[in-house]
């Protein structure tokens, strides 16, 4: 496609792709392993991509290395499909997957969470809410579920 502009645009287009893909390859690794600011993060990624592009253009060994990695084109999807949790979805056949049912009732439901509130301090010796000490809690517990 770009060949109509002569050999240079062709070479440039391939190298640009190598630079772009190498940059995209290194960015997640940089993200996980360093704590760079966004500017430095993008600059370092782009620099790595440019070095990779330059090495690709100059070094036969680097190109050979990429050729040796090329079985990954087939291996990566195979590992994803057959040796990851996704394989259970592929080989599960037509089994019904249980899903939550949509409730038809329109009754209002309230959930009250007392975060870091000690339940034990509310209870009497019968493990019920002590209605003498906490009458309001006891009344609320009488017409609701609590745990």
């Amino acid at each position: 496609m770009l060949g109509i502009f002569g050999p240079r645009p062709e070479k440039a287009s391939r190298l640009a792709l190598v630079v772009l893909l190498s940059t995209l390859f290194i960015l997640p690794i940089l993200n996980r392993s360093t704590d760079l600011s966004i500017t430095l993060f993008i600059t370092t990624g782009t620099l790595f991509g440019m070095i990779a592009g330059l090495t690709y253009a100059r070094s036969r060994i680097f190109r050979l290395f990429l050729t040796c990695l090329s079985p990954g084109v087939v291996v990566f999807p195979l590992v994803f499909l057959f040796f990851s949790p996704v394989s259970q979805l592929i080989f599960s056949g037509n089994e019904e997957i249980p899903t939550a049912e949509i409730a038809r009732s329109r009754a209002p439901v309230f959930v009250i969470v007392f975060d870091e509130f000690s339940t034990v301090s509310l209870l009497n010796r019968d493990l019920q809410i002590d209605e003498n000490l906490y009458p309001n809690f006891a009344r609320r517990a009488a017409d609701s579920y609590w745990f």
Partner: protein
Amino acid sequence: MHSRQKLQPLLRAGTLSQSLHLMILFNLALAQPLYDVTSKQAEFYVAHETPAAWLVFGALLLSIGLPGLLSLVPPC
């Protein structure tokens, strides 16, 4: 012209290896991270009720289809 014809298979081999380079780079940069993330959270596919055939088709498209298209960019 004659020497050009002799070199033709080598040129084709070079084209193939360069296409493979782009394909493996695409897989390393985009496909593999996607596989890594989504395979750890397979419930994503369950929630979207993704058919098994779509998973296979998607993997083939991501690993071979798209990088194959990308490698159609003419060689150096």
